[in-house]
């Protein structure tokens, strides 16, 4: 009796440790199950994400300050050079833009002739990437814009050169986006030259996508530009994704071994653009019509 008492009053004994640990273990399993099945836990995640936002801003601050400081102490020469370069770029792109409006008008006219649906231009907004590291097991970035600003799950993220990825989880002020190079990411593309449709899978390397679904006799060659086909509904069509790098045809295999290099510099961007796809607005409108 005395022995049990002294054991119980042992200052090192933590009451009900095993039971608590077991309960929490079950709770985490339940959480993971719910989170994986469907996004049942978005409210929980959003609340914690809002609580974490100040920490994220704090972590992001040094690199933001450095960038600001860099802007301030940049020498006049450098600014002049950058200004010249940008002016040249504008001069080069302006004629193309003029052409673009003419082409767009022509396209609309032709589509009208074919009775095809008009394409509505997508709305685009520039977003900064926060300098915080996220998921160590995936290729992901944190965007400085959240559901408060209308960001939604599955939204396409692009930069000046092409598709970067898509939004995976939205918090109130921030959003996590997954890059197209993540091994769990697949994206519906077509070859710009001939419209051949296929799927581009991420490999876990920033500079390589795999296209495993192409038969040996497929009309594809190195240098072909892959653009989004818009078929999955996630990405709007016609944005550049990657350039085919190598095509290896092994006679006894059913499929060719095709790799491509993403057009966008996935690991170097600091600012990206979010696309509010017009198709999604159509869907919302259609849903609203259904509800009525």
């Amino acid at each position, binding site marked *: 009796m005395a022995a049990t008492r002294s054991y119980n009053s042992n200052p090192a004994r933590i009451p009900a440790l095993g039971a608590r640990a077991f309960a929490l273990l079950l709770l985490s399993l339940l959480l993971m199950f719910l989170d994986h099945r469907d996004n049942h836990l978005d409210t929980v995640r959003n609340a914690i994400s809002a609580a974490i936002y100040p920490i994220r801003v*704090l972590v992001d601050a040094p690199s933001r300050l450095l960038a600001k400081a860099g802007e301030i102490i940049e020498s006049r020469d450098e600014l002049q050079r950058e200004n010249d370069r940008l002016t040249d770029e504008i001069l080069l792109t302006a004629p193309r833009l003029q052409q673009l409006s003419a082409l767009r008008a022509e396209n609309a006219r032709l589509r009208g002739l074919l009775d095809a649906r008009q394409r509505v231009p997508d709305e685009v907004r520039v977003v900064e990437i926060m300098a915080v590291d996220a998921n160590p097991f995936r290729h992901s970035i944190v965007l400085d814009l959240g559901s408060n600003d209308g960001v939604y799950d599955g939204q396409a993220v692009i930069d000046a050169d092409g598709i970067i990825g898509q939004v995976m989880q939205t918090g109130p002020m921030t959003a996590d986006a997954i890059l197209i190079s993540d091994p769990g990411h697949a994206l519906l593309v077509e070859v710009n030259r001939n419209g051949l449709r296929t799927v581009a899978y991420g490999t*876990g390397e920033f500079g390589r996508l795999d296209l495993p679904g192409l038969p040996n006799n497929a009309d594809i060659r190195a240098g072909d530009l892959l653009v989004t086909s818009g078929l999955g509904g996630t990405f709007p069509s016609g944005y550049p994704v990657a350039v085919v790098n190598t095509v290896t045809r092994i006679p006894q295999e059913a499929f060719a071994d095709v790799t491509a290099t993403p057009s966008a510099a996935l690991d170097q961007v600091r600012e990206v653009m979010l696309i509010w796809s017009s198709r999604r607005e159509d869907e919302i409108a259609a849903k609203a019509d259904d509800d009525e």
Partner: protein
Amino acid sequence: MSKFRAVSNLPVLVTIVVALMLTMMPLPDSIAAFRPDWVALIMIFWALNIPRSYSVGAAWIAGVFVDVTQGTLLGQYALALCAITYITVKFHLLMRVFPLLQLTATVFALLALYQFLLFWINGVAGVNAPAVSYWGPVLTGALIWPPLYSFMSRMLYRVQSGN
């Protein structure tokens, strides 16, 4: 008995927030896989020293926060942290008298278990990541443990003795 004076929550909270910040801090891609798991190390330390106030419950809450900052499955880090904290608390009297080298080896084993749990959950959820993102943090975590331990112990001693 001043040595056993309860530690206020502030130092623990501060270290956990700092650990979260270090977890989020941007690193070059080449070494990002070798980022030590700061939150796990900090939780092992507190579970070792003040297991009465900070054990599985605190580890679980910290884990949920890590899950949200990392964008992993909600509950993934919580489960792993909870498991290693449970083992640490269970054997904290034994581990306290370990010489530093042996303690470091134990921490290495705990971190390995931690990463294995993460790996296992990733496998069930269908996330495949390069192997280095699992063993990298174990290696650097065990390397950083001795200096971290002596620094934190000194800090804890100061807080406890009221300086």
